[in-house]
């Protein structure tokens, strides 16, 4: 039987003249292209329009773009490095990758999501997949966000270019310089892009200057491409990102240095089969620093005898290095079937330390207090991913994908073992686990205009290093110290998603509700038997598998183009989360809407945007939440471009938070007001 199948397979592989399969619609992902490159036409609605709104002032960080993607919300701890949350999932529940490459932040407090090391200038596109279906780059339950880096195009007129841009934002006196250059010929192409930003403390809508919202960063990306012939191409990427003096007003400490470097080599061969192989290494060094803070900053009631004379400093450096490789093969094995095979492996080494230096005024400094908040750990994950898409009929496409990851955690530090002996654990040095993910997608075109895609899947994910072996990680949101659970089980999800898409010439509509039924949901549960580490901690929470949880999400996107040159866009996102059928899941955003109208004629573009959110009253007080009021914020922008003796000049200007509203969003830690009215100026010269 199998033999027969195999020969059948070979037969199809060798069918002459049938090399190209039917153009298959990638119905399963939302794609955002950030440049003027062609937009994937098979997606009726792809956020392009709303992203365009922000593209005109590219000096905004990636966070500004993420905030405008369907399903994405941002957890905010400061003016910089917002953490993406997708349909209520965040952190270790999401696969955030750069062109399939794994990268992990080095901060125990999630102050450096991978997205903070990538700039819009580096980016070609962002691909989002929700729920268990985001498993192409690793088993996960919440979805995936894959960012593709810019690359030069070979053998085109645009291969030689250079541009420089300057941007200014009044609210934070933010100064930005951006550049991009490219060189190329028939076989070689090179490009580099980069940005430098310096931002001071911003002013909120109520006039208050928010301290510790400053940051400074530099990002440079260089990519070299070599294509000896039409089939083969090689690519080498180097990305370097460094942020200094980053303030986190919602946390008791700031970041003096966050440095990332990324190196990648890629080989692609495009024949009937598509082969892509990648080898990569990246490293993040993250240094937290509280030297500018009052050591009792977070205390509401300062303890007797421990007043200002207490002088404590914390050094919290973290390091995360990842070495990985993958090979991906796309095989159109017959006219109606396309098979994707991917084999990948990565090793991540993480360590985070904390040294506290205490000195009471008039006394000699005490000996340093040292611990490993993430004991040194080497995690190796080897995975295999298989996906097959079948055109059953002209109208029905079935896609099935399976992934298996073999995860080996190798505890490198004896210190970590000793630390956990306190909680009566006798830790094994090595712990391994096989985890799985299965998804089934069906896409049915009812008419040419109306398509329904349904997804059903099951997946699990490994607990993160912090969730397994975290040691007194202070969470400023609920005020608890978090401790890992070495015996943590995987988090599991059963996922259902429906995706309705309507594509009429004037109206494009997309509604995509999804629900995840979660088992062994990982969250911190209070343990009153363990004492907190800090004066300002409310207690201890131990990461625990909660039997059940539920997350429901729905997005609505509508693009209406009644007349030429004029369009209106509406995005709504809603998420509902529940733990154990009763409690509200913490950190769930309320209904959020973005409505934008745009007028575009030739080189002139005018846009107006309204961002609103309902109040969030469904909160979990035990997890440090309080109610968040509703808000509405208005932004306007205009852009104009013209050519002056071979130099293309683009001007844009805009005002964000037009009515100077003092507001914060529900996912903003510390309920710190967002920036008030800001005038933005942007000028770009391209040659």
């Amino acid at each position, binding site marked *: 039987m199998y033999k027969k199948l195999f020969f059948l397979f070979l037969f199809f592989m060798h069918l002459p003249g049938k090399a190209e399969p039917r153009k298959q619609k990638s119905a399963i992902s939302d794609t955002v292209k950030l440049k003027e490159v062609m937009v994937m036409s098979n997606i009726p609605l792809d956020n392009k329009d709303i992203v365009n709104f922000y593209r005109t002032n590219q000096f905004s960080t990636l966070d500004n773009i993420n905030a405008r993607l369907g399903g994405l919300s941002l957890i905010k701890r400061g003016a910089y490095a917002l953490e993406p949350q997708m349909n209520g999932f965040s952190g270790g529940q999401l696969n955030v990758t750069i062109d399939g490459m794994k990268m992990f932040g080095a901060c125990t407090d999630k102050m450096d999501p991978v997205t903070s090391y990538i700039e819009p200038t580096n980016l070609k596109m962002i691909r989002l997949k929700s729920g268990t279906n985001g498993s192409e780059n690793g088993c996960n339950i919440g979805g995936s966000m894959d960012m593709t880096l810019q690359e030069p195009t070979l053998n085109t007129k645009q291969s030689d270019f250079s541009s420089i841009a300057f941007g200014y934002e009044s609210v934070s006196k933010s100064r930005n310089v951006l550049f991009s250059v490219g060189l190329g010929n028939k076989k070689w192409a090179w490009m580099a892009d980069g940005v430098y930003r310096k931002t001071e403390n911003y002013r909120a809508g109520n006039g208050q200057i928010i301290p510790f919202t400053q940051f400074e960063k530099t990002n440079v990306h260089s990519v070299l491409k070599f294509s000896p012939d039409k089939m083969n191409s090689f690519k080498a990427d180097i990305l370097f990102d460094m942020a200094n003096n980053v303030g986190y007003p919602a946390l008791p400490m700031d970041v003096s240095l966050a440095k990332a470097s990324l190196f990648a080599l890629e080989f692609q061969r495009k024949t009937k089969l598509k082969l892509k192989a990648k080898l990569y290494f990246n490293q993040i060094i993250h240094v937290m620093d509280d030297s500018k803070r009052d050591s009792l900053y977070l205390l509401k009631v300062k303890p007797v005898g421990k007043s200002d004379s207490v002088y404590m400093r914390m050094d919290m450096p973290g390091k995360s290095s990842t070495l990985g490789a993958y090979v991906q093969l796309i095989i159109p094995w017959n006219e109606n079937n396309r098979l994707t095979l991917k084999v990948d492996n990565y090793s991540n080494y993480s360590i985070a330390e904390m040294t506290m230096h205490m000195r009471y005024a008039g006394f000699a400094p*005490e000996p340093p207090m040292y611990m490993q908040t993430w004991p040194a750990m080497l995690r190796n994950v080897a995975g295999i991913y298989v996906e097959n898409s079948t055109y059953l009929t002209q109208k029905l496409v079935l896609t099935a994908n399976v992934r298996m990851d073999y995860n080996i955690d190798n505890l490198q530090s004896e210190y970590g073992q000793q*630390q956990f002996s306190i909680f009566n654990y006798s830790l094994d040095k090595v712990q391994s686990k096989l985890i799985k993910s299965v998804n089934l997608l069906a896409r049915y075109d009812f008419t040419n205009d109306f398509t329904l895609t349904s997804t059903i899947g099951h997946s699990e994910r490994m607990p993160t290093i912090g969730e397994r072996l975290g040691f007194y990680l202070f969470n400023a949101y609920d005020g608890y110290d978090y401790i890992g659970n070495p015996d943590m089980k995987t988090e599991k999800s059963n996922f259902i998603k429906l995706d309705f898409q309507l594509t009429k010439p004037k109206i494009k509509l997309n509604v995509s509700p999804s629900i995840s039924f979660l088992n062994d949901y990982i969250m911190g549960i209070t343990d009153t038997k363990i*004492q907190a*580490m*800090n004066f300002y901690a409310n207690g201890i929470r131990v990461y625990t598998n909660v039997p059940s949880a539920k997350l429901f999400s729905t997005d609505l996107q509508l693009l209406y183009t009644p007349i030429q040159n004029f369009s209106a866009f509406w995005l709504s996102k809603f998420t509902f989360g529940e733990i154990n059928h009763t409690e509200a899941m913490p950190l769930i955003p309320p209904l959020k809407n973005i409505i934008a109208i745009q007028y575009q004629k030739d080189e002139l573009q005018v846009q107006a945007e309204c961002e609103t959110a309902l109040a969030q009253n469904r909160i979990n007080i035990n997890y440090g939440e309080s109610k968040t009021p509703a808000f509405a914020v208005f932004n306007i922008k205009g852009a104009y471009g013209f050519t002056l003796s071979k130099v293309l000049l683009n001007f844009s200007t805009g005002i964000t938070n037009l009515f100077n509203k003092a507001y914060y969003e529900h996912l903003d830690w510390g309920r710190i007001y967002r920036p008030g009215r800001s005038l933005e100026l942007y000028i770009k010269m391209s040659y």
Partner: protein
Amino acid sequence: MKTNILNIIIALLVSTMLFSCKDEVETTKVNPLEGFIKLEEGYAIGAAAKVEVWGKKNFFMGYNNLTVVLLDSINPTDTLKDAHIYFQPLMTMPQTTGMPMKHACPVENPDEAAINGVFPGAVAFVMPSMGGTWNLGVYVHNHKNDKSGTVNFDITVDSPTTSVMSVFTSQSPDSAKLVLSLLQPLVPQVGMNDIEFTLHKKASMMEWPADSTYTIEIAPEMPSMGHGSPNNVNPVHVGNGHYKGKVNFTMTGEWKINVAVKKDGTTVSKNAYFNITF
């Protein structure tokens, strides 16, 4: 029947394992004096024995592990392996008026059979040499020749920078004088550590027997951080006045171990604590 066979098989398996283990264990020569230095030596006149006193460092206020090496005084290469040894520490404190005050301190005399050729024991000096002079007598009853004698050493007892002993008067009607010594952890580390105390009670100036009638509770604390550590195990009496438990340190730094010595549930110590810094 079935279970019987199973039991036999298990027994066989276990015995094979034990046997094979025994095979593998090499009889490595233990150096009983590893980490020790010779503090004193002299002849116990009458016992025909040369006495060497070894300790980990010079005598200090606290529980001192002292190991005695006995050599034949005529043939010093011959170590004696069977003898009764008694430590006889004596503190002489000159008084402004009248006779000088004399007292001993708690001791743990070695077994009469040498262990690895030496005689480990202990003396818990209850004060440093500052208030008077310490004299350490070592009485030897040499079982080889059935003779006995004593050697006396004039010693200096240091006051350690970090106290490892608490001498206090019980807050109970009998006002007993108690000696609480911290033996372990000697090399503290982050994580779980063994903690060991001895408790002795002053019965008279010269008699300081071990006492097992008290209970000990510990509460480690990091004073500058205002926190303790979880899952500590209160020491329990394991014999001869020794109390053993577990203490946890969540990080390096300056720790304070608060100790409550209790009699019938009532704390009789008063703010006893030990500092451990690492």
